[in-house]
């Protein structure tokens, strides 16, 4: 059931609007040189941080379709009746969401980095920071989606909830991709793992609480 759920959610993600956050990410990357000017050295210095801000805001876009449609449609109830724990549902949704978000963002980072004059080793660090950080970001997105499912103006609420909690991830991901300290990488990885470990329980409890 869990494998089937991951496959189903990933398929729904790809047939839905999986490209939307990616296009948004690229759009922000395109805007930065217009706003800052074409100074390659400056762009190269602030580029990785800007791309992480773009990734974070892009992660907000799919939140409303992660949990709410399945809650409204009774899918979460039926999974519960099939004996699937709410935490397991959440974990499967995190895995599926990462599949539709992480790899695409990774690919989109190449053109985005080119726009901001990020090259060579710092491009390598940026890509590595995306691999390390996006699982945590996906976990956070699913947890926030579960917490806001069914609320009026859930989208705006989700932004207010997700962005502050994502600040530690942003700090270490951006500092690792900017100057490449190993410590920053270790801390980014730690935060990503903490988010991955905690999110299924938060999301599971939120799903349970939303059952009325």
């Amino acid at each position: 059931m869990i494998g089937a759920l991951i496959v189903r959610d990933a398929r729904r993600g790809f047939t839905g609007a999986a490209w939307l956050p990616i296009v948004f990410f690229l759009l922000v990357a395109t805007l930065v040189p217009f706003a800052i000017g074409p100074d390659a050295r400056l762009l190269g210095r602030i580029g990785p941080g800007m791309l992480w801000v773009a990734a974070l805001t892009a992660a907000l876009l799919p939140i409303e379709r992660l949990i709410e449609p399945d809650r409204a449609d009774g899918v979460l109830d039926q999974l519960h009746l099939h004996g699937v724990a709410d935490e397991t549902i959440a974990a499967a949704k995190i895995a599926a969401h990462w599949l539709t978000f992480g790899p695409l963002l990774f690919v989109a980072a190449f053109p985005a980095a080119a726009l901001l004059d990020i090259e060579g080793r710092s491009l390598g660090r940026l890509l590595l920071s995306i691999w390390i950080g996006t699982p945590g970001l996906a976990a956070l997105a699913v947890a926030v989606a579960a917490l806001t499912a069914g609320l009026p103006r859930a989208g705006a609420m989700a932004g207010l909830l997700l962005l502050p909690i994502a600040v530690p991830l942003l700090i270490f991901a951006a500092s690792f991709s900017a100057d490449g300290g190993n410590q920053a990488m270790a801390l980014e990885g730690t935060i990503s793992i903490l988010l991955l470990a905690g999110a299924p329980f938060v999301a599971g409890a939120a799903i349970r609480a939303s059952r009325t």
Partner: protein
Amino acid sequence: MKALLRFEDVALRRGGRLLFEGLSFELSPGERLQVAGPNGSGKSSLIRLAAGLLRAERGHVERTPLALADDAPALDRELPLGRALQFWNASPETAMDALGLSQLGLVPVRLLSSGQLKRATLARVAASGAPLWLLDEPLNALDEDGAKKLGFLVERHLESGGAVLAASHQKLGGEWRKLELGQ
């Protein structure tokens, strides 16, 4: 014979309002029970409580594996009906036939009418193989033919040792034990 569903002195409160208390009943294999009562008397809540989706304020509920049909079809809207049903059960064909849906297997769920969607929801329950069926307003949106087909399915399910708990304010086909709420 072991009961498929047992309520023992159950009370349920929702939104600060006590819907019922001291409710006890048993549902044995081959039995069907209709929960009746006016709007807002707690019929759907009782069904959700029986399913384990709500928790009782007091008392004890025991249940066997069950299948639930309510207003939420829980079928992927963009998939063809056959494949959407297959997510829950590997072979839904017999149940689809029994509800007159065999022609609709390739039609996307989002294009189905509300009556067809109700039939699909019931097909999901019929295909589940669970001994206990919980049906919340099963006649909503069903036409006469659909109601008759549901009647056949219920009969066959009871003959094979299953039990059905249905919430409805309408008259259901066949002989039902009644449980009146809101008196």
